[in-house]
């Protein structure tokens, strides 16, 4: 099955479809517990990962949390 993953061609060998939970494993997606998944332009709810099927030709985006910049919370509160 051929997909477009984060803008690049990607293949899942030997499968014609997988659900999103399986895809996260197949593609060894980092931060799989927290990653946001967008399928063909729609952000998926985490609860829908098991029931959402990814097929040939689909476009998938994995969107990751990124911090950065500077601390603006009290250190004591951590």
């Amino acid at each position, binding site marked *: 099955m051929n997909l477009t993953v*984060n803008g690049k061609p990607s293949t899942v060998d030997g499968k014609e479809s997988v659900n999103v939970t399986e895809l996260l494993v197949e593609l060894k997606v980092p931060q799989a517990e927290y990653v946001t998944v967008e399928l063909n332009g729609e952000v998926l709810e985490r609860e829908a990962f098991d029931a959402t099927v990814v097929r040939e030709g689909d476009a998938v985006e994995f969107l990751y949390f990124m911090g*950065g*910049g500077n601390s603006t*919370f*009290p250190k004591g509160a*951590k």
Partner: protein
Amino acid sequence: MFTEEQIERYSRHIILKEVGGKGQKKLLDGKVMVIGAGGLGAPIALYLAAAGVGTIGIADADVVDLSNLQRQVIHFTPDVGKPKVESAREKMEAINPDVKVRTYREWISAANIARIIADYDFAIDGTDNFAAKFLINDACVMAGKPYSHGGILQFVGQTLTVLPGQSTCYRCIFPSPPPKDAIPTCSQAGVIGVLPGVIGTIQATEAIKFLLGKGELLANRLLMYDALEMNFRKVRINRNQKCPVCGENPTVTELVDELDALNVCDLEK
């Protein structure tokens, strides 16, 4: 309406048809709040001051640390130990005496964020932790305040401009913060010093475009930058009807500190 000195100072702006004298006046009348005076806040504050954005707020409770200087280009070696907002104010005023800098030497929280952003046309998230990022998003959405989100880690960064009620907000993409310590921090994982320069400069560009009313803002599109691949990508992201803060049935209806989500990219450690 301009002094001779201002005409010379802003000549490269004024000559642009998208800016002109009218646009420069808009910048001078503009008010932008920069939250965080660190890696992202440094280039943001410097460029906004240089551009002649007339009123710039800058919030940060921290003091300059030696380990900041690798990327926080508004702070210099003799500033180590000085409050970051003071260090930033000195540089901004030295670049451009036209600019009024308002400093907020405080950590943002559910108790003060609404007050801090209230008087500004546009806000910029230059913070490093998800508690702050979610709080800024929620406060801006609730107040209808346009703002720019920015995030960095290692060699990658992301930015999104949020026009509350009209475009995708941060929670439309990330409904809730990750648990504390779930995502590596910059102090654990590192960050290449030039990265916040790239992302912060884009955030400052968005603020300037917003004030000018020119161009197309980075709304409904998350811009992702990978410095190692030298790749920029924009991903179209539509508003999420189930967004906890701007969706059809919001569950986030008041500002709360997401204490569990503190400390994500604490660059100070």
